[in-house]
């Protein structure tokens, strides 16, 4: 084993270099440009910071009228949702409302849905997509688990009046809760996506369906309209080396496990905490807590991801691009906002970028590429505390512009394309 690892060291070093550089350059430097906002983008794209210092700006939506609803993780002045109006390269704050901070926000069928760490609310919208009664939202879901870790209840809706809510695991890998390895009890009320009715008040666990299980934590999720299916981005487990120094080097622990994109069907189990995905071997592996050694593969009953990304990049936003502004290759593909890593030390931190994943016929097709980079403000600042900006939420404007939030400094970027 040890010999094997030594033999593989150069391979890991090369992979490491690739990963390290992954979010430093947006493709070919000769074919990319640095926009006024400091972001590096492919040729023809421009990025402008249309708002700054909003607070911990998480997910957002943009209405056909060019209004933005952005949800703050922590309510500012008692208001958790800020409303802005976009006019070209500028955005003006119109108002703010909602007594709760949080991450999840979505618009569907005349309602604005928003979550805090335990509940989901909805606000009625008028025909201009303005909230009509900001102080009296309807409580749709209540009583969800929130225990000091992976608390945000990110959400999205389908076309059949259902809402999908992430309930993240309140544990890295369940060790504290499954000491006898009899089955992880965290899975009973968390580590999955729950489905609720979008229009029924005061639902809780008994009213919902555990739509998919074995997902450690999901922040970026979206409904794919092309194949009418839920896609989610999982935050993979931490600390393979810290917990199993004899099985994983610090280098392997930085690159593994993959951050995974799953295309979910009802009843799917993605395998947390029992398995993790190795993007280098391209296999679902048995977790070391449950007898794995870095080589044993997982029970095939657990689903495989449809795409995989380097470890600890922290995917916080997922958007399927359906606009007409960007070049054809982006149509129906996925943008992923990677918040950026912390669990890669002593290796350099990475992520802190927006990635584009090409799609064909509703499934990933081809290698992902860095789309927007430079959020952190340079290699020396690429760390959770040092980064100037960290990408989080994604939204598409009515004209096909792409919006990206930053929850570090509270910026909103508008990314546009012109030939």
């Amino acid at each position: 084993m040890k010999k094997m690892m030594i033999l593989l060291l150069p391979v890991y070093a090369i992979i490491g270099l690739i990963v390290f550089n992954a979010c430093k350059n947006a493709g070919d430097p000769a074919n990319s440009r640095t926009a006024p906002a400091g972001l590096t983008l492919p040729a023809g794209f421009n990025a402008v910071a249309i708002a700054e210092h909003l607070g911990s700006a998480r997910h957002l939506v943009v209405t056909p009228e060019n209004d933005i609803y952005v949800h703050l993780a922590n309510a500012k002045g008692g208001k958790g949702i800020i409303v802005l109006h976009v006019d070209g390269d500028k955005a003006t704050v119109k108002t703010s409302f909602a007594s709760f901070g949080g991450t999840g926000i979505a618009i569907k069928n005349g309602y604005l849905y928003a979550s805090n760490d335990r509940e989901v609310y909805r606000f009625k919208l008028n025909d201009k997509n303005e909230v009509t009664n900001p102080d009296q939202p309807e409580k749709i879901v209540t009583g969800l688990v929130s225990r000091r870790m992976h608390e945000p209840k990110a959400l999205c809706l389908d076309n059949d009046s259902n809402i999908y809510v992430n309930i993240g695991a309140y544990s890295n890998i369940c060790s504290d809760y499954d000491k006898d390895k009899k089955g992880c009890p965290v899975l009973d009320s968390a580590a999955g996506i729950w489905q609720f009715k979008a229009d029924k008040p005061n639902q809780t666990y008994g009213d919902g369906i555990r739509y998919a299980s074995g997902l450690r934590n999901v922040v970026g999720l979206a409904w794919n309209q092309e194949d009418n299916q839920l896609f989610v981005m999982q935050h993979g487990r931490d600390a393979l080396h810290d917990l199993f120094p004899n099985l994983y080097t610090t280098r392997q622990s930085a690159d593994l496990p993959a951050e995974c994109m799953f295309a979910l069907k009802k009843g799917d189990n993605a395998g947390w905490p029992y398995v993790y995905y190795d993007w280098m071997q391209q296999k679902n592996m048995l977790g070391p807590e449950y007898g794995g050694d870095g080589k044993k593969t997982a029970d095939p009953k657990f689903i495989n991801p449809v795409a995989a990304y380097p470890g600890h990049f922290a995917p916080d936003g997922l958007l399927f691009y359906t606009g007409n502004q960007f070049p054809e290759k982006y149509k129906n593909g996925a943008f992923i906002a990677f918040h950026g890593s912390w669990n890669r030390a002593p290796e350099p931190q990475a992520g802190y970028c927006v990635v584009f994943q090409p799609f064909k016929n509703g499934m990933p097709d081809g290698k992902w590429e860095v789309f927007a980079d430079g959020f952190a403000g340079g290699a020396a600042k690429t760390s959770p505390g040092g980064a100037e900006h960290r990408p989080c939420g994604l939204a598409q404007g009515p004209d096909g512009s792409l919006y990206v939030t930053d929850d570090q400094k509270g910026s909103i970027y508008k990314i546009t394309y012109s030939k």
Partner: protein
Amino acid sequence: MKIKRTVLLISSALLFFNCSFAQDKPVKKTTSHTATPTTSVARGKIVYTSICLACHMADGAGVPTMNPPLIKTSYVLGDKATLIKIVLNGFKEDVEINGQKYSNNMTPHSDLKDQEIADVLTYVRKSFGNKASSITVADVKKIRAANVVTK
């Protein structure tokens, strides 16, 4: 530096959050080197790199919302006994430092030797801009002897 306590029970010393990887049996990592440095700070740096760095970072800055910083906080600079107890017992409460909340659990590190704990705490108290007194093996021994582990 303004520090607001959110928990009374374990009031100071916020060291070595081993993030949320608290597990039943903390893994003992080897910190032995062929030539052991002679100073406590130098030895402490080796322990820090092996055990603490993954969460608290090389510069002691920690990770926002998760793992608290070790830079000039009263947890690090203050009462030695509570600081030592956090290493021995771990930490599972939310804390707020300069308006930022931190909530990851830290696993106990009672498997470390008295000398290792003294060294690593001395290193932390004299690094990252911190200028506090050393922690001795005798300090650790005394606290460990009186330590009642609450589960």
